[in-house]
């Protein structure tokens, strides 16, 4: 085993680049970004759908989807305790508990996780709620770990394992995964329950409404000989009166229950399907990302790679062959296509990936393709969710807003580390934006293409589909009056022009905004003399991105949307006020930024001399040689 560790270490060292290593903790957490995307996609769509009126009451569903995962997350420790028969560690493991406490304090955790023991063989893992933190391990492994912590040769290896687990609490990924996991699980269950209940209710109403609405309860109860007059009256008082029955009949005549069923299916099924995609791919990515961050935490704390490498090798099967090590030599890019696809579904990264990410920590931020696929697919899913009957009626007037804001804000967060370690970021930005918009373009081509094909091949089918689609998003689903189009061809042409125009408008708006963001971030990264930069500079970046996103929401997007759909909207008083607010926000933000820029940009914090050029990782002052933004560089030896 030692020979394998040494081989792995030499291989890693021989291939290590001489460039400085990026400190991934100084930049936006990829785990947090993916978590936020999952939560915003699901909860955002449901909350949007519960804004206004609907044939069925949606807001309890929205509230349930927000609070029930939280409740399930709080319940997690109990479930794990029951499922794995866990119990608090005894007096025989007091030394291990003390080591956990010491390590927790040294890495700055605000509470010490409690060690709990499983009677069965189980790997070391963490779980907990907001205030109850646990590290679980089997008793046998705990005893072995405690012994090895006492031995100088193996102490650092065992410490590495503990620090890895503690870093899950440090980065907060334990609650992000906990909540996201419950949200995905409960979304699926909730939607299945809602569909089953509402479809059942709908079919029941279809089956019974004709007979029920024709009933005369006074006559019906009059037929029961065994009832006394008083009891008869009690029953009659409970049932609807003749007048109420007449009103119900009138309401029922105007309602097409089949359309209500169609509304229910098309409102809820997208959540089930999209929840499944999020669970399969994004959830797995969230898991993998948290492991990379925890690995990075270990090497940052210990300042060297060997102990953690030994810990990782120890986790591999004892039948590790030498060819497994030589496989580490393979670039990840050379992995076969199906290996890559399978890799997308894995929750734990493989050994070679973990080594590669320690060697080159910037891999955490991904290649342009990984970012493009993640954002592009999610933008498309968000589009589909927002186009469902639950939300289209409300966001139909803002077709470009949500997706544009999502793309801009997420790519902006990805740009920050790219600016620091890449020589040029614009090729990547073009590729990411291009890919995202190409996906949207392809989707539009498919949907408009389908409509065109149906128009030519089967106009009746198209007519039926369009009527069903309109009925589904009708303000009161089930109303079957005035559906359909006099001229489907004109509708398809108009829809095609508007939707394809949006693709190019969004492309232009996104690129222009990203150009502004890139310019401002480049300036921000030169604020070498900004006080407490290691803690505050990234917060300024977040604030700036949020400010730009808000300004986009208030000024640019309403303007382009109005110009595309309804230019007269620009003259609406509310629209004018919102635009004015947006412009004022832009001006205030610009003034604040450039004032601070004048004060802090391009001055060495040590000698005060001007530093020229953009910041790149490892840049030093030309005058005194001081390392600029040293907190952006990871300090560990390969």
């Amino acid at each position, binding site marked *: 085993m030692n020979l394998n560790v040494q081989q792995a270490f030499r291989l890693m060292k021989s291939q290590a680049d001489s460039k400085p290593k990026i400190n991934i903790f100084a930049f936006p957490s990829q785990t947090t970004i993916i978590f936020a995307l999952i939560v915003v996609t699901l909860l955002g769509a449901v909350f949007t759908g519960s804004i206004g009126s609907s044939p069925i009451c949606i807001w309890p569903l929205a509230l349930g989807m927000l609070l*029930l995962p939280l*409740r399930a997350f*709080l*319940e997690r420790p*109990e479930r794990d305790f029951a499922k794995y028969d866990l119990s608090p560690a005894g007096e025989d493991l007091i030394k291990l508990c003390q080591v956990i406490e010491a390590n927790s304090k040294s890495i700055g955790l605000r509470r010490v996780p409690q060690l709990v023991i499983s009677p069965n063989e189980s790997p070391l893992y963490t779980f907990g*709620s*907001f*205030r*109850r933190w646990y590290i679980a391990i089997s008793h046998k492994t705990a005893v072995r770990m405690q012994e090895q912590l006492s031995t100088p040769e193996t102490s650092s290896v065992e410490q590495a394992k503990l620090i890895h687990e503690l870093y899950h609490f440090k980065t907060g990924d334990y609650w992000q995964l906990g909540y996201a996991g419950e949200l995905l699980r409960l979304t699926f269950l909730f939607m299945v*329950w809602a569909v*089953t*209940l509402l479809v*059942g*209710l709908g*079919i*029941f109403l279809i*089956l*019974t409404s004709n*007979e*029920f609405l024709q*009933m005369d309860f006074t006559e*019906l*109860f009059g*037929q*029961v*000989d*065994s*009832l006394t007059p008083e009891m008869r009256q009690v029953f009659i008082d409970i049932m609807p009166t003749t007048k109420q029955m007449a009103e119900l009949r009138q309401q029922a005549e105007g309602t097409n229950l089949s359309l209500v069923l169609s509304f229910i299916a098309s409102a809820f099924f997208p959540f089930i399907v999209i929840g499944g995609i999020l669970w399969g791919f994004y959830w797995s990515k969230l898991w993998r990302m948290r492991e990379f961050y925890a690995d990075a935490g270990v090497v940052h704390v210990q300042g060297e790679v060997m102990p953690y490498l030994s810990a990782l090798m120890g986790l591999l099967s004892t039948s590790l062959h030498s060819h497994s090590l030589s496989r580490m030599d393979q670039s990840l890019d050379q992995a076969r296509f199906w290996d890559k696809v399978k890799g997308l579904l894995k929750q734990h990264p493989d050994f070679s990936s973990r080594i590669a990410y320690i060697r080159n920590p910037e891999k955490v931020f991904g290649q342009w393709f990984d970012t493009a696929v993640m954002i592009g697919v999610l933008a498309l899913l968000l589009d589909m969710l927002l186009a469902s009957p639950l939300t289209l009626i409300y966001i139909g007037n803002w077709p470009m807003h949500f997706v544009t804001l999502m793309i801009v804000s997420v790519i902006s967060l990805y740009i920050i580390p790219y600016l620091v370690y890449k020589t040029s970021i614009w090729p990547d930005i073009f590729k990411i934006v291009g890919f995202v918009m190409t996906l949207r373009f392809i989707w539009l081509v498919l949907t408009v293409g389908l409509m065109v094909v149906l128009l030519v091949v089967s106009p009746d089918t198209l007519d039926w589909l369009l009527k069903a689609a309109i009925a589904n998003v009708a303000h009161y689903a089930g109303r079957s009056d005035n559906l359909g189009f006099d001229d489907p061809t004109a509708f398809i042409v108009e829809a095609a022009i508007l939707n394809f125009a949006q693709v190019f408008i969004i492309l232009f708006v996104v690129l222009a905004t990203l150009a502004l963001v890139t310019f401002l971030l480049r300036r921000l990264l030169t604020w070498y003399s900004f006080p407490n930069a290691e803690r505050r500079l990234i917060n300024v970046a977040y604030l700036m991105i949020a400010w730009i996103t808000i300004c986009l929401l208030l000024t640019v997007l309403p303007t382009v949307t109005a110009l595309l759909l309804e230019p007269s909207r620009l003259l609406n008083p509310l629209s004018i006020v919102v635009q004015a607010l947006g412009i004022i926000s832009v001006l205030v933000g610009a003034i604040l930024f450039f004032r601070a820029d004048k004060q802090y940009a391009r001055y060495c914090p040590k000698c005060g001399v001007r530093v020229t050029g953009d910041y790149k990782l490892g840049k030093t002052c030309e005058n005194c040689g001081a390392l600029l933004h040293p907190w952006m560089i990871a300090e560990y030896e390969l």
Partner: protein
Amino acid sequence: MKKSNFSLWLSRLAWGILCLDVLLIFAVPTDMSNTLLLTIAYVGWLILSLITASTWLIVRYRCFFSCWLGWSIPIIVLVFSNMLSLGILRVRQSNLSLFFLLLTVVSGWSIGVATVVFLWHKDKGLRLMGWGSVMIIWVFLFAWRFQGNLFELWIFSLNNPNAVVPLWWVNPMMCVFGWIFPLGLIGFIAHTVRLIAIELQ
């Protein structure tokens, strides 16, 4: 030690009462039309003692009733006894009929006690309410589809008490869900409060 001895004796007493009551049901003739007070006292004793004994035994053997199988036993007993006393397999022999009628009453009560025990140990209130409501809708749907207008069937059963009751399944279903919904809600709220309290400790 004293507590467990006392509990053991109470359990034996409960089992004894159950056996005694079953003996009484089959040994005592049901034709007591000229002793109304005695009939009331007799039936009252049977109901009260059976309910008390079954309640204690469910609490005593709570480990069994806190799992899905144990919780569903009183429901199965209720459905079965209801079929035999009021439903499609109605027995005519008077002592046997009384037995199954009392079994229906006691099992109806026991479902409530078993549900309390179940929800005390397991946080399944929301699940019971949620899927319970789905079940009610679909049962009524299939019933209307295959049995016909349920209102008319109900009127028929009120007018023909001696006939086989086509809606015999409604009573046990209403009994089960009559317990599940309020207890499920209380259980859900109670467990939520408990979780928040534990979290804030």
